[in-house]
C-alpha cells in the first residue's frame, strides 16, 4: 500500500496548508506595518471569545455548510458545480415568495415552507445545466457559471420590476411578516440577566445545516442512490456496466446539489435580512468550493472547514473595525487560505506522502 494513513490525509495536510497560509498572511501584515500577532489575537478575540462573535462566525458558517455540501454532493458524481451562487440566489427568490405570499401561523411552519421553496427553486436552477450535461454533454462548469449570470439578471429584473414596494429606493422586497421571523441565537439562549449573542445574525437555520450534514452523510454512504452517485463518479463505464443510468444519476445529484445551495438563502434571507436583497449571497457559492475541497467532500470536513471560513470572515470584519488594515488586504488573507487549502493541496500532499513512504520503507 503506497498511501498515507487516513489521519495524515484528513488532518495533517489541511493543517500544514493552514500554517503556510498563516505564515504568508503574517508576512503581508508585517509588510503594511501592523503586528501579525496582534492582528491574529484580534481575530480570535472578536470571532471566538465573545458570544456575539460566535454568532457571526456561525452565521457565515451556516452559509458555507450549505454551499460546501452542495459542491461536495455534485463532486461525488464528478460534477463540478460552480453554480452554487446562482442556485442560492434563485433559492432566495423561493424563500421570499413563500414568506411574502403565504400567511404562516408560526415560524416553525414558515421555516419548513421556505426550506422547501428554497431547495425547489435552487434545484430547478440546477436542472437545466444538469440536463444539458447528461444528455448533450455540455460541460457543467461552463453552463453552471453562465447560469450564475442569468440568475443575477433574473433576480435584478424581479426585484426592480415586480417585488419592490412602490416608492422604495432599494431593489429589495418588502420586509417579511413578523410571523416568519426565525429565532436567532439571541432569542434562544439569552436570559434577562445574561444577554448572549447580542445582535448576531446566527439563527435556527444553523441546526438545519447540521441536519443537512447528517442527511448528506447518510445519502452518500448509506443509500443505494449514494452508492450510484459514487460509482458513477469513480468510473462511468463501470457504472453503466453495473446497470446505473448515468443520465438519471447526474441529474439527481445535481438537483440535490442545487437544492442544498438554495437552502443557504433561508439563512441569509429569512434569518438575517428578513427581506430579499440583491446581493444576499455575496460569494458564499464560490467559498463553498473551497470549503468542499478542504473538507475532502465529507460532511464532517465540510462542517469544520465552514467553521474555519466563518472564523475568517468574522475575524476579517474585526480587523476592518479596529485596525488600519485595508479591506482589500483582508480579502488577500482570506484568499491565501483558499489558495493553500484548495488549489495548492498537492504541494503539501506530495512531499508529505514521500516522507511517509520513506519511513515505511525504512521500517520494512
Amino acid at each position, binding site marked *: 500500500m503506497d498511501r498515507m494513513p487516513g489521519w495524515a490525509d484528513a488532518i495533517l495536510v489541511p493543517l500544514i496548508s493552514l500554517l503556510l497560509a498563516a505564515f504568508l498572511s503574517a508576512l503581508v501584515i508585517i509588510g503594511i506595518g501592523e503586528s501579525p500577532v496582534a492582528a491574529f489575537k484580534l481575530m480570535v478575540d472578536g470571532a471566538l471569545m465573545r458570544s*456575539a462573535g460566535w454568532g*457571526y462566525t456561525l*452565521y*457565515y458558517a451556516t452559509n458555507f455548510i450549505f454551499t460546501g455540501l452542495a459542491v461536495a454532493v455534485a463532486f461525488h458524481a464528478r460534477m463540478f458545480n460552480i453554480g452554487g451562487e446562482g442556485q442560492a440566489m434563485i433559492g432566495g427568490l423561493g424563500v421570499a415568495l413563500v414568506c411574502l405570499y403565504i400567511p404562516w401561523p408560526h415560524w416553525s411552519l414558515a421555516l419548513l415552507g421556505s426550506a422547501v421553496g428554497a431547495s425547489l427553486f435552487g434545484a430547478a436552477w440546477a436542472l437545466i445545466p444538469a440536463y444539458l450535461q447528461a444528455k448533450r454533454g455540455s460541460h457543467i462548469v461552463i453552463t453552471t457559471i453562465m447560469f450564475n449570470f442569468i440568475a443575477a439578471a433574473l433576480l*435584478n429584473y424581479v426585484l*426592480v*420590476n415586480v417585488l419592490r414596494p412602490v*416608492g422604495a*429606493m*432599494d*431593489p429589495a422586497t418588502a*420586509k417579511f411578516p413578523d410571523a416568519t421571523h426565525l429565532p436567532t441565537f439571541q432569542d434562544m439562549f439569552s436570559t434577562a440577566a445574561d444577554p448572549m449573542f*447580542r*445582535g*448576531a*445574525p446566527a439563527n435556527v437555520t444553523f441546526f438545519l445545516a447540521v441536519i443537512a450534514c447528517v442527511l448528506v452523510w447518510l445519502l452518500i454512504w448509506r443509500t443505494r442512490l449514494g452508492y450510484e452517485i459514487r460509482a458513477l463518479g469513480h468510473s462511468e463505464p463501470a457504472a453503466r456496466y453495473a446497470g446505473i443510468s448515468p443520465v438519471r444519476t447526474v441529474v439527481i445529484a445535481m438537483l440535490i446539489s442545487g437544492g442544498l445551495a438554495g437552502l443557504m438563502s433561508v439563512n*441569509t434571507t429569512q434569518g*438575517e*435580512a428578513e*427581506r430579499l*436583497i*440583491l*446581493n*444576499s449571497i*455575496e460569494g458564499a457559492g464560490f467559498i463553498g468550493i473551497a470549503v468542499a475541497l478542504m473538507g475532502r467532500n465529507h460532511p464532517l470536513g465540510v462542517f469544520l472547514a465552514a467553521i474555519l471560513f466563518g472564523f475568517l*470572515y468574522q475575524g*476579517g*470584519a474585526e480587523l*476592518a*473595525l*479596529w485596525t488600519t488594515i*485595508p*479591506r482589500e488586504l*483582508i*480579502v488577500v488573507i482570506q484568499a491565501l487560505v483558499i489558495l493553500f487549502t484548495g488549489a495548492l493541496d498537492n504541494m503539501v500532499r506530495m512531499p508529505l506522502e514521500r516522507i511517509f513512504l520513506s519511513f515505511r520503507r525504512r521500517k520494512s
Partner: protein
Amino acid sequence: MTLMHKFLATAAALSLSAGAAAAEPALIFDLGGKFDKSFNEAAFTGAKRWADETGGTFREIELQSEAQREQALRRFAENGNDPIIMTGFAFGNVLGEVAPDYPDTKFAIIDMVVDAPNVRSVVFNEHEGSYLVGMMAAMASESDTVGFIGGMDIPLIRKFACGYVQGVKAVKPDATVIQNMTGTTPAAWNDPVKGSELTKSQISQGADVIYAAAGGTGVGVLQTAADEGILSIGVDSNQNYMHPGKILTSMTKRVDNAVYDAMEAGADIETGIYVMGVGNEGVGYAMDEFNADLVSADMQATVDEAAAKIGSGELMVHDYMSDNACPVE
C-alpha cells in the same frame, strides 16, 4: 519604587487613552467603498478635514457584506464611539432597529430619514441645487434643448431631474429637456460607457448642455460632452476641474460638510431631521477658475437671485419625493 511608578504611569496612560477613545466619532462607508470619487469619498473628505483641523481621530470601516451593517453599528456603539455616522440610504432599515438599543449613543445617517430620538437624519434639498443648475443650463443653451442623465432610476434621482426641469422652464418655458436614466440597478452608478452612449444620443437630439446625476457613470457623460464640444454639468462634488472650460458648473452636495458638522458637534449633536439646502449652503452650484469664462455676470446674478429667494422661502421648488410626481416634464 521606579517599577511602581512605571506601573502607575502605564495605568494612567491606559485610562487616558480609554477616555479619549470613548469620545471618538466613527464613520461607516457603504459597500461602494471609501474612494468612489463621489459620495463616500466626500464623506471621507469631511472627516479628514475635521481630523486635520482639530487633531482628533475617528474610527472608520469599509463594509464587505450586508451582515456587517448591523455589526459595525453595534460594535462601534458598544465601543463608546459617539457620534456614529453612516453614508447612504441602505442603512435605513438597520439603523431603525439598532438605534433604540443604544439610547446614549448618537447616530447620523446621510440621505435617509430614520425616526428615532438619538438619530440625526441628514437630507439634502437636491431639487434646489438642481433647480439652480437647470437655470444656468437654460441660459447657456443655444438650441433650447438640454439633457439630463440619471444613474439608477430611484425616487432620489427623479428628485434631481424634477428640480432641474423646473429650473430650465423657469428661464425658458418652451425649452425641451431630454431625460434618460442609466439603469434600474446599483450597477447604473458605475457604467461610464453607457453614460457616454446616452450622451451621444442626447446630442443627436439637439441637446447642448447635459446634467449628469449618475455617480461614476457621470465620468463618461462629462468626457463625451467635452469630446463632442458641448457643455455638461457635474454633480455631488465640484467636478469643474475634470474638463476645464467644458463643464458649465457642478451641482454641489456638501456631504463633506454634513460629516464635518456631525463630528464637530460630537456627542452633543442635535438629533432630528437636518435639512441641508441652498439656504445653509448644503447644496449649490460651483464657481471657480475652470468655468469662469463660461458663466457671464448676468447669468450668475440671475441664479444668485433665485438662490436668495429659495433661501428665504419666497421661491418653492417642488420636491419629487414629497408626492412622487413632477409638475413639469
